């Protein structure tokens, strides 16, 4: 998922100034590798919203108890995590266990601040390939991710039934269905295309499923995917406001009945469940053609072990990361947070227990990591993608031109 609840505006110059200042004050540091028998471990993550906050609190405490350590957990808002981590990296005060949004892992691993999990006898064998790719930097695995997610197409069952529309499976069907479902102040479909990585995240399943690739954005495959979005907005089947909608805004539109279908993820289930009289279901993101494979982006957070210079603490930290990734905990997280376990062997059992997650679990079979190809260069490409999407959607250029401009920076 693209940073749940992360208002980009939250990060301000204050953060920047604080960061610069701490860099200067960070001269002191704890060197030398000593081994102590730690009685408590520092954990840093960004699950600051319920129910995630307490689900992880319970799980971390239980894992701590199993390993005889007390967990001192610090939670920061998603938007502030990277600034915090960089500040801690420069002052050598990184926590023992660090959670990172999966597309950020390679960026932080590149600093040298993280220890490969193989140092502690852990491995990512049996994890979905895309998940392992996201946590791998220069051939080594630096994090284990217990849960993942992606996007699908949610639809309002009553609205589709009334309009006599079946859930679309291809792009053509999507356009036709969206057009038919658009009436009055109601749009056929809603998605999120703002000027940030959330927009990129939502566009990726369309771009990747059509064979598009972030290494070369100026390709016909990417242009066709962008043309689909342009057609939906131009025809009036989707609101022009998609340019400024977050995924939470999209969900609100869907809840309010202003959109018959929406592109969104399973983290919306708990909120949607609270909406009275809303009957909805989920299908995979429509494919370019019948029978084509849908390639969706992988979301979720990975757990890492920073190099704190204390072998004893690091060993304990590895135990906590291992515990969070145990079969039982992967399944438990999946059920409680509506995420998908990353160990492929758990899939069948999971879907049997939580049928509503089937669409997402299936989609993750072929899902890709955002940083799988470009690694630490991903942010530049992601910026180009959302800029091109916005340029084309506002009619500033054709999809081909917009992508070419973006590619050439």
């Amino acid at each position, binding site marked *: 998922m693209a940073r749940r609840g992360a*208002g*980009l*505006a*939250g*990060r*301000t*110059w204050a*953060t*920047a*100034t604080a960061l*610069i*200042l701490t*860099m*200067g004050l960070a001269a002191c540091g704890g060197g030398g590798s000593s081994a102590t028998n730690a009685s408590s471990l520092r954990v840093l993550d960004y699950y600051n919203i319920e129910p995630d906050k307490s689900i992880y609190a319970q799980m971390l405490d239980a894992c701590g108890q199993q390993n005889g350590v007390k967990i001192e957990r610090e939670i920061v808002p998603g938007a502030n995590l*990277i*600034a915090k981590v*960089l*500040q801690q*990296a*420069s002052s050598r005060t990184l926590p023992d266990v660090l959670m990172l949004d999966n597309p950020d892992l390679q*960026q*932080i691993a*590149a*600093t*040298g*601040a993280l220890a490969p999990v193989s140092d502690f006898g852990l491995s990512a064998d049996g994890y979905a390939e895309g998940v392992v790719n996201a946590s791998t930097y220069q051939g080594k695995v630096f994090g284990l991710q217990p849960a993942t997610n992606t996007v699908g197409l949610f639809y309002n069952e009553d609205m589709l039934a009334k309009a006599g529309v079946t859930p679309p499976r291809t792009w053509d069907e999507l356009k036709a269905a969206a057009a038919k479902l658009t009436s009055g*102040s109601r749009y056929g479909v809603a998605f999120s295309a*703002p*000027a*940030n*990585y959330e927009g990129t995240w939502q566009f990726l399943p369309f771009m990747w499923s059509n064979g598009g690739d972030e290494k070369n954005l100026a390709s016909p495959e990417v242009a066709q995917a962008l043309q689909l979005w342009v057609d939906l907005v131009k025809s009036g089947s989707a*609101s*022009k*406001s998609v*340019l*400024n909608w977050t995924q939470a805004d999209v969900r609100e539109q869907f809840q309010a009945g*202003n959109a018959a279908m929406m592109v969104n993820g399973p983290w919306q289930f708990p909120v949607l469940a609270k909406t009275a009289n809303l009957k909805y279901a989920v299908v995979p993101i429509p494919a370019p053609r019948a029978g084509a494979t849908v390639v969706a982006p992988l979301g979720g957070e990975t757990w890492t072990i920073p190099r704190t210079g204390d072998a004893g603490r690091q060993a304990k930290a590895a135990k906590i990361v291992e515990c969070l990734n145990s079969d039982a905990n992967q399944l438990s997280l999946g059920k409680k947070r509506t995420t998908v376990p990353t160990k492929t062997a758990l899939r069948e059992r999971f879907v049997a227990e939580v049928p509503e997650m089937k669409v997402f679990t299936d989609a993750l079979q072929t899902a890709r990591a955002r940083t799988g190809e470009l690694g*630490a260069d991903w*942010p*530049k490409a992601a*910026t180009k993608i959302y*800029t091109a999407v*916005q*340029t084309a*959607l*506002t009619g*500033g250029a054709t999809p081909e031109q917009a992508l070419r*401009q973006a590619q*050439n*920076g």
Partner: protein
Amino acid sequence: MADTHGRGGVTTYRPSNGAARAATSVPARWSARRRERLLQLAFLVPAVAYLLAFFGYPVAQNVVMAFQHYTTATFYTGEAPWIGLDNYAAVVGSAVFSKALLNTALFTLGSIAGQFVIGLAIAVFFRRQFPLSRVLRSLLLLPWLVPLIVSGAVWRWILDQDNGVLNRFLGALHLVADRPGWLTSTSLALIAVIAVNIWIGIPFNMTILYGGLQDIPEELYEAAAMDGATGWRAFRYVTWPLLRPVVNVVLVLGVVYTIKVLDIILGLTGGGPANATQTIATQSYQLSFQQFDFGQGAALGNILIVISLVFALFYLRASRGAVRG
């Protein structure tokens, strides 16, 4: 200082003083003066240390950073290779730069013009005392007190194309045929962002200008009225010339504050749609904190600092004028 010198001079030449006494008292007084000087320096030290640590150091660091390939890795390793002017070449050469520069200029000029004219009009209006005028004046400070993130979120709702209050209102009055995309149209987004920033800036302008108006003696208006200058003419020939020094200060401070506005743009549009509201400040922020290219972000930040410095010099001149005036 001048005071001590004066007294010292008088004592030395006082005729009733014996030569011997004078000989001992001069070094004693000299050392007293020295002590006082040291004391004065000691009072200066905290302020200077504060300025150096919290303004000098970050600025110097930012200048240095712009010449380095400064990435996330640098934070851990401390290594940032020198790359000369590459960062400047990259940010100035990028396709967004000219657009961001133009947007910054339009945003700053538009915001200041609006804030100043409306702020001045309200300040002049509140010169008269009327029932509840104090309460109303305090209420006008509200936009200043609301956190920018909050006002950003509220304005985003108000300006929403489909369900926003503004479009509902305009639609009900049949003022617009189609719902304008205040934040989603490339031609309107900058105007909308400027309008919100004007709303935020009015209290600042009003407060300072109102303070300036209080300093203009009432007799001048009475005298002007005797000569037949009332209303607009009184404003033109009495208020305006006497308010000029304050006006200069308000305008220059306004430029320095507005040129670096970040939160409100990020909150409303994130620099979009399609870079329509991208400014040097938002672009610098994105380079540093989203693309993790801190060197390029710093380079852009430095360009902004230089522009601000030019206006800061104007400010210093203007504020000197204000003190004299």
